[in-house]
């Protein structure tokens, strides 16, 4: 029963309390560069999630045979091979997406989220737990990518789910929702500063929810406790 509980805890950590995108701020480079549309974000999110699951599984499976002094080169080797394989598969079967993700696909290797999870979690836990952790952390990263992408896309060009056919095939060409005309978009949102501002807004939003949740139980306790933690 404790195992099930900790899987739930892992999911909560990955999606909220320890979210790689909003709390740990890992993998900022791809997060900011590829989040200009929801579909781009989703594509990179899926690729990162797949890499994370495979690398966590492999690291966890080999954990008894990994000597400490050479663990980092071994992780890098595992991660780099995984990414290369995913890149080849994508080039063969999802060429449009391969072109969209461009340099950011091979750069998943350098996403410290993946190396971080290998070192901090996978090498100390069973395969099952490592996969659960990879799914949770990968989903957390993916959700932030998609949210930021949708936000920037909506503000920047007035659409939601533009270019969905890159990922879902020709049938998805009509999924695009033009909320308002492209001319009225705020260009800033699509440019790099828009990525930083958007991420900042998401961070502020999350921190605000956390603060409200912390305050609620405290309002029942003595006011001294509230004073002990001055508002920062």
């Amino acid at each position, binding site marked *: 029963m404790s195992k099930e509980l900790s899987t739930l805890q892992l999911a909560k950590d990955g999606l909220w309390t320890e979210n790689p995108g909003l709390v740990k701020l890992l993998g900022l480079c791809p997060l900011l560069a590829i989040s200009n549309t929801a579909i781009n974000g989703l594509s990179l999110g899926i690729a990162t999630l797949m890499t994370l699951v495979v690398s966590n599984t492999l690291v966890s499976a080999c954990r008894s045979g990994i*000597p400490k002094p050479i663990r980092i080169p071994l992780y890098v080797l595992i991660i780099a091979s995984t990414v290369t394989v995913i890149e080849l598969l994508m*080039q*063969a079967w999802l*060429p449009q997406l391969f072109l969209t993700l461009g340099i950011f696909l091979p750069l998943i290797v350098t996403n410290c989220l993946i190396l971080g999870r290998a070192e901090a979690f996978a090498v100390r836990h069973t395969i099952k737990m490592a996969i659960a952790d990879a799914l949770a952390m990968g989903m957390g990263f993916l959700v932030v990518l998609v949210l930021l992408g949708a936000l920037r896309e909506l503000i920047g060009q007035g659409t939601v789910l533009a270019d969905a056919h890159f990922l879902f095939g020709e049938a998805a060409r009509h999924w695009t929702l033009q909320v308002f005309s*492209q001319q009225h*978009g705020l260009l800033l949102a699509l*440019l790099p500063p828009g990525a930083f501002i958007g991420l900042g807004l998401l961070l502020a939003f999350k921190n605000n929810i956390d603060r409200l949740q912390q305050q609620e139980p405290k309002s029942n306790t003595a006011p001294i406790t509230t004073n002990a933690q001055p508002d920062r």
Partner: protein
Amino acid sequence: MSQSILRSTETRNGLLLGAAVCIALLVVSGVFFLTRNQILDTQSTQLKSHLSQLLVKDSFNNEPSTDTVLISNTALGTNEPMRIYRARINDQPVAAVITAMTPAAYNGPISYLLGVSYSGDIIALRVTNHTETPGLGDDIEIRRSDWVRSFEQLNPTAMSESAWQVKKDGGQFDQFTGATITPRALVRSVHQVAHWFARNRDTLFSQNVSESE
């Protein structure tokens, strides 16, 4: 004695790392060979679909995606060799698709494909790669705007250079609101490429197929 133990651990670690590299190499090269044909297929399908947009359907009966030459000429906007695809009917030249680029754009070079008939009429123009400002300069993409279609059917060699300009420079091509440099670069580059093609078309069509890069 402790030194010899240390040494043996190091040796073991080294061997382990080497073995891991070999396994990784095997896996990656295995996947490479498994996907290679699929990747080549996908690339050639994509190329053919690009070329079909740049040539008049059924006007040729060779395979332009393999009937290519590599040309280095500054008229194409770079010193790098650029690929030219040739369409023929019964070995008579019909049209060519020229890969070219212009360095004079607002934010880095614009690469494009220009389909031009043997007589010099522009069949179509497609921008393949650019880094122009989204929302301002990217109306050169066919999926955003029909602007590139304003070149179609025109023959730059039959028109005066003063007409082959954006409207701001006294010509006939629309510029974009807030972005003149991008369309101006493309308009001037197309003019240059078309004139170069008109001067060199016979040499181009008589050259042997270039080896792939």
